[in-house]
């Protein structure tokens, strides 16, 4: 999933690109949310004991509950969410997808075994892993979002790529995903753990949304975006495996030494120590540079009033949610829409660069020290 070890690599070499934010600071911002990732999280996390929530027919409804309440929470904070769904997976990803299918099968077997032997803990652990985001689940989520008046965007291919293109074009302020390859696709601002700011327990524990800023990361790594893409590929991404013996730190050093992944491969082949995969590098690179996405002019982001009758019918009648809680949710949505006219102050006053500059100087000395260290190794 994503780029192997990229989070740590950035933390070690471009610490300034990451900052913890309060959820509130995204007030008034449009955020593109990578839907499938989040829905999967709901299936795993929203539970009663060890079981998913279900409706009368026994169908899972965890995703609906999660999506409904968390989206309201975002709207109440003043965030304008839009959800981006995956289209068809790119061909190059089939290897990665097969791996995930295998992992699910394994989890299913393990869960069955645990059930037979009565190992409750193991059963819970594996049964969570079985969850699969089925087309029905996706369809229900889309229906729910549309009833809530939240924009739904169907990407022709990968959702992360679509989010990145929207973010680059300024259509949204940031992408919310757990997937670091959003940065590889060129998302200028990536927010991870967006939800964490939405719950009281996380707030207490100090778990906050993490923001990654791509321009700062590139500045700190002293590379342009195309070199960064090469670096990510070398670390191992969804479309190609990593090379045994080449971790993120080595990958960074190799990239700095050779400049492009082709030259790195050539050098490694010459050295003969590593098994270098035979893949079409330029084809994979094209997936990151020119992914299949909708152009921003084809996207119409509009937040509309929730359809109260529709929501009651869908959630209460069809999916056995309690009517009073849904009604109070709808009320919260309506009142958050009234608050949406509030402007942000920083749209009127521009940021002063002074404070940041001082910090750059400090970081420079740190990174140069680190640079020396890694050379010594």
């Amino acid at each position, binding site marked *: 999933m994503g780029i192997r070890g990229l989070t740590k690599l950035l933390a070690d070499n471009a610490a300034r690109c990451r*900052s913890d934010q*309060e959820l*509130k*600071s995204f*007030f*008034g911002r*449009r955020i593109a949310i990578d839907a499938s990732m989040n829905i999967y999280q709901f299936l795993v996390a929203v539970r009663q004991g060890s079981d998913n929530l279900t409706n009368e027919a026994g169908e899972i409804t965890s995703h609906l509950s999660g999506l409904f309440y968390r989206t309201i929470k975002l709207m109440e*904070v*003043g965030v304008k969410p839009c959800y981006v769904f995956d289209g068809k997976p790119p061909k190059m990803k089939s290897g990665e997808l097969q791996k995930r299918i295998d992992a699910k099968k394994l989890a299913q077997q393990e869960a069955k075994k645990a059930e037979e032997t009565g190992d409750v803990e193991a059963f819970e652990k594996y049964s969570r892993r079985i969850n699969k985001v089925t087309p029905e689940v996706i369809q229900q989520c889309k229906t729910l979002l549309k009833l809530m008046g939240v924009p739904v965007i169907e990407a022709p291919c990968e959702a992360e790529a679509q989010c990145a293109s929207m973010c680059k074009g300024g259509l949204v302020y940031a992408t919310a995903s757990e997937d670091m390859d959003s940065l590889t696709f060129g998302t200028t601002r990536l927010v991870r753990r967006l939800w964490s700011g939405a719950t009281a327990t996380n707030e207490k524990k100090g778990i906050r949304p993490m923001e990654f800023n791509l321009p700062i990361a590139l500045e700190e790594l002293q590379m342009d975006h195309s070199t960064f893409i090469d670096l990510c590929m070398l670390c191992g991404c969804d479309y190609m495996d990593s090379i045994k013996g080449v971790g993120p730190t080595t990958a960074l050093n190799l990239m700095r030494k050779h400049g492009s992944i082709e030259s790195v491969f050539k050098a490694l082949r010459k050295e003969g120590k590593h098994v270098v995969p035979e893949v079409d590098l330029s084809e994979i690179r094209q997936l990151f540079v020119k992914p299949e996405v909708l152009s921003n002019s084809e996207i119409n982001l*509009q*937040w509309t009033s929730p359809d109260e009758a529709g929501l009651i019918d869908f959630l209460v009648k069809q999916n056995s949610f309690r009517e009073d809680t849904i009604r109070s949710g709808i009320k919260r949505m309506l009142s958050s829409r*009234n*608050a*949406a*006219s*509030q*402007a*942000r*102050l*920083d*749209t*009127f*006053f*521009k*940021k*002063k660069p*002074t*404070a940041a500059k001082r*910090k750059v100087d400090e970081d420079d000395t740190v990174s140069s020290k680190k640079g020396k260290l890694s050379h010594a190794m």
Partner: protein
Amino acid sequence: MFEARLEESAVLKKILDSVRDLVQEANWDCNDDGIVMQSMDSSHISLVCFMVRASSFEVYQCERNVSLGVKIDSLAKVLKCAASDDSVTLKADENEPNTMDILFESKKNDRISDFQLKLMVIDQEMLGIPESDYTSTVEMSSAEFRRIMGDLSTMGDSVTIEINKGGASFSTKGDIGSGNICLQKSASVDKPKDGVKITMVEPVKSTFSLKFLNIFAKAAALSDTVVLSMSEEYPIRIEFAIDKDVGYVRYYLAPKIEGQES
């Protein structure tokens, strides 16, 4: 060594009270002119800044500009330990501002208390605020301002402030009904602070969140008068000048823009 001594701690206490509902931590920038703080609230809707001029201190020494990262609540806690008429002295090492020394001395000089407060490194976004010319301003009693904001909050969440030739009007609408308070230009001869002064180049009308305005109104403790400065579709500036030319506390609040969809 940075050192600043204020004759009465009350001023500092009131300043802290006027920012603590909006800001948890902020850099206090100390230079030749005095101490300045600027910070947005976490939702980036409002901004508060204050300045205490160097001349208003009994002793003011600042050889090098220094930023002190202050946790507002912690400093407020320390200041609770001072009587209002105690003098207060702030000291910090300009080269390594890790802690701030805070010294209280009673009027009779028979009690001296000494606190050390840990400082923080705060990575803060500063906004450049243009010294713009506002099209309209209203100067009025700060107690009156506080009262109007309180009264309107019983009805609604936001207030529409309109300044025109006739005067200044504050109106709100809520679930239970609506309300309007109108002030006319007036000059009170014996008590100048109770008058309402209006300067107007162009009439202006904007809507703002009452939640924030009520927080700002608490700064009425600092000053008898308040000046509201407005331009069309622009943040309102609300300034409380601290008595005797000590300095000021200013608030900026972004307007609500109807039909805004972005």
